[in-house]
């Protein structure tokens, strides 16, 4: 989960959000949810225009097609949000009191019962569940979906490694196509039991991923739509089904006639149809959004032009939301290249966090961060700031110079900074960092990459980082699921270091960090544990947190029952429950 687009932000709304929202007018509805008649940021933590009126077509636009429509193969946060339209899994995210999204049983009757050692998890399925083709959804189908994740030759690109690394399996098990059934997932007529190879207390969060959606046992999407081609014809288990799909052009969802509302407490579909149009011109989407041709953007926040309009035009602003996301923007300062900690600290202190946040969109895009754990993840502590960056967060040059003296390079040094040119903001952030470090004599030259190999082999390869001498790189991280483990495991655990596609960017090996992460699997960690981990990471001076993300979205005023899904997809609207007027 590296980029905004790819990562899935998970967030259980923090207190700060409620503060922002308390100013918005709220009216109580019969289901006791927090609701709002609208206004700026109203949908960030309340349901705007609550309604039960059905009918109409919801028109969405995205700047690119999903990486896959196969629930087991998609890893884009916004695509997981789209999966909510047509797939269900054992567990799901449900809005509680209109303010926060939390785990709730979906196909299953509970979040799961586990053995004392967190190694066995059992779920009982509800009755009356059906696929869009009319066939009943059985535990066998759920099992089959998860077994597909082991067939990495055809089912790839998704978050499968979470499952393949925890479910107990023979070494040579290669998925249902080649190796048949997996014995460690046991099924009865109405229940399913997972046997894990090690303790995993966050298991219900994995069960809430689209990747654990049921797939019809062996028949999949029907003749010609098995395995790699299932993306073209995924069978629906949710309230909508795909009526037509033209790759890179459009997806049209209609109501699934076999979905039974009485089995579902999470999804309450209102619109008859949901149209998703792919339009690679993000600015064009924005102008159509403004004109009302589209109802909402499904994947990325609004661009700079619409952002400026929103904050200068009160009418537009009233229909915009800027929810907090569980995303942290940070720089990696590589200890493999800058071996001296004081030299790294000089970079920490000289960095102008305010200017870099401005490069990414300013106050609407984030709040300056002093630690790594973003709001919504257990352990978030907004007061924690081990290396304060001076007045207005523009950098503490006195401390930076002192650090340089300590590292033995009082006049500064030179290094390279890697960034992806796919994001215009990253180019600007590089320039801002260059100007900031120049103030204390640290000279950085840019190492731009067009983005296609940035996360895989450019900064994703520790050896490339070392060979090319990157001292700094721009990175960011959103959790795959809203727990401390979900946020930290890939970026900090020493067992996550891999030769390519590496997310533990600085190749961090810290006993305290590993200890907290591994202990959390047995369900014992508290906020204090995660704060201890955060401090231990900061102590290494390898991750330089810049800001905690926010995303600016615009909603058509005709939308009803709309709220930001702050458990999924970077605070994007929870489209499955949105209705339209007219």
């Amino acid at each position, binding site marked *: 989960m590296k980029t905004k687009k790819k990562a899935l932000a998970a967030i259980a709304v923090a207190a700060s959000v409620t503060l922002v929202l308390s100013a918005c007018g709220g009216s109580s509805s019969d289901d006791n949810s927090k609701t709002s008649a609208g206004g700026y940021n109203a949908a960030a933590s309340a349901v705007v225009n609550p309604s039960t009126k059905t009918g109409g077509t919801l028109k969405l636009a995205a700047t690119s097609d999903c990486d896959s429509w196969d629930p087991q193969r998609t890893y884009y946060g916004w695509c997981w949000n789209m999966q909510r339209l047509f797939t269900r899994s054992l567990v799901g995210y449900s809005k509680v009191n209109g303010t926060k999204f939390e785990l709730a049983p979906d196909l299953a009757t509970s979040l799961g019962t586990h053995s004392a050692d967190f190694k066995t998890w059992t779920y009982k399925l509800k009755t009356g569940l059906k696929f869009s083709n009319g066939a009943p959804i059985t535990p066998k189908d759920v099992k089959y979906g998860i077994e597909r994740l082991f067939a990495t030759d055809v089912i790839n690109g998704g978050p499968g490694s979470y499952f393949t690394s925890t479910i107990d399996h023979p070494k040579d098990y290669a998925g249902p196509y080649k190796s048949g059934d997996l014995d460690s997932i046991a099924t009865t007529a109405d229940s399913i039991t997972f046997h894990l190879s090690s303790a995993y207390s966050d298991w219900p969060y994995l069960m809430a991923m689209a990747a654990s959606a049921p797939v019809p046992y062996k028949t999949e999407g029907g003749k010609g739509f098995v395995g790699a081609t299932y993306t073209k014809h995924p069978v629906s288990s949710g309230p909508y089904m795909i009526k037509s799909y033209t790759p890179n052009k459009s997806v049209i969802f209609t109501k699934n006639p076999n979905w039974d509302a009485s089995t579902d407490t999470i999804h309450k579909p209102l619109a008859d149809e949901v149209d998703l149009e792919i339009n690679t011109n993000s*600015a064009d989407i924005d102008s159509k959004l403004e004109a009302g041709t589209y109802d909402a953007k499904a994947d990325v926040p609004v*661009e*700079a*032009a619409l*952002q*400026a*309009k929103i*904050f*200068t035009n009160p009418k537009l602003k009233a229909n915009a939301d800027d929810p907090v996301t569980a995303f942290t923007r940070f720089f990696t300062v590589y200890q493999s290249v800058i071996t001296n900690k004081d030299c790294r600290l000089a970079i920490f202190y000289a960095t*102008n966090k*305010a*200017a870099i946040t*401005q*490069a990414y*969109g*300013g*106050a*609407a895009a984030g709040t300056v961060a002093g630690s790594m754990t973003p709001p919504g993840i257990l352990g978030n502590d907004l007061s924690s700031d081990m290396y304060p960056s001076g*007045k*207005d*967060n*523009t950098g503490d040059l006195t401390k930076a110079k002192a650090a340089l003296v300590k590292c033995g390079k009082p006049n500064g040094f030179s290094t*390279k900074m890697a960034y992806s*040119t796919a994001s*215009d*903001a990253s*180019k*600007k952030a*590089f*320039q*801002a960092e*260059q*100007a900031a470090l*120049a103030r204390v004599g640290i000279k950085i*030259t*840019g*190492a*731009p*990459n*067009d983005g296609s*190999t940035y996360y895989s082999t*450019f900064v994703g390869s520790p050896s490339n980082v070392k060979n*090319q001498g990157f001292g700094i790189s721009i990175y960011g991280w959103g959790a795959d699921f809203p727990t401390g483990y979900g946020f930290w495991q890939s970026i900090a655990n020493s067992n996550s270091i891999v030769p390519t596609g590496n997310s533990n960017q600085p190749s961090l090996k810290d006993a305290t960090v590993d200890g907290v992460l591994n202990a959390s699997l047995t369900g014992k960690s508290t906020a204090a544990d995660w704060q201890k981990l955060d401090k231990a990471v900061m102590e290494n001076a390898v991750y330089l947190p810049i800001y905690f993300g926010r995303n600016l979205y615009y909603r058509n005023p005709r939308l009803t029952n709309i709220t930001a899904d702050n458990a999924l997809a970077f605070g994007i609207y929870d489209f499955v429950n949105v209705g339209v007027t007219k």
Partner: protein
Amino acid sequence: MSLTGGELEAATAIDVGGDVAAIEGRSLLAIAWRRLKADKLAMAGGVVVILLVLIAAFANVLQRIYGQSYLDQHNAGSSQLLDPLTSMPKGAFGGVSSTHWLGITPVLGQDVLSLLLFGARTSLLIAVSATILALVLGVTLGLAAGYYGGWIDMIISRAMDVLLSFPVLLMSISLLTVLSIYSSSDKLRYLVIIFVLGFFPPGFPYIGRIVRGQVLSLREKEFVEASRSLGASNLWIMRKEIAPNLVGPILVYTTLTIPTNILGEAGLSFLGVGVQPPTPSWGQMLSDAGKYFQIDPTYLVLPGLAIFISVLAFNLLGDGLRDALDPKSGR
């Protein structure tokens, strides 16, 4: 015993010039200069070109006098001149003020005038270097092809044909993209841009063809045959007899290639594969401006105007030179 190149040149001029009788010994270039002086548009273009060159050469001096540097960003803390919510400059016309005469950029808050000054340096440095590369290759190879003919001509001409059929834009985009994966060196990037613009059309193959064509007719001229019959070596003839007669077309071609290269550099930078920030470039400025034109078109107009004026100036000068140097222009 033998005639010098200059005398020969004068002799040629006498052959073709109109009002020679009155002005004795005036060279082709002198005549051309007289014609050029009478061409007001070309002179205006020439003056702008000289100004541009001076701006590019003395950008840092000008900036010191002006007192604002593009390296200073007004994007945070006490020097903040941007609206933190929109990232746009506070104040009218992109933050125009007595300290920032043309305003500041969105997001980074850099001084626009300073960016334009240094953009001129980038633009001219690359355009002129690429043109020089094209000239060196084009004249040498064109001369060899035209003069020797035969298999040398065959090889060089076919090679130029091949180059002329290259999809230059696509190739340069992919070349520069690939480059950024392997190297982050600014100097190397400069060299590759110069190479791409100079080596591929419209660069060396065009001038190579033009020179070859000229040489083909020149080598049959009497003064060349005379020289040859007197025992001059091939190199001597090329250097002393033929090359001086190529000065005209080369000069014209140079002034017409530079604006094409200015556009080429701006285009590549606009597409994000040209020079990289923080080195300022007009193309980059245009590319950035595209996102803000709905809010403030100034950002589009200023670098656009800079490119427009420099290309126009070089073209006017080039056209004037062509008229002045072409004896058949009928003036």
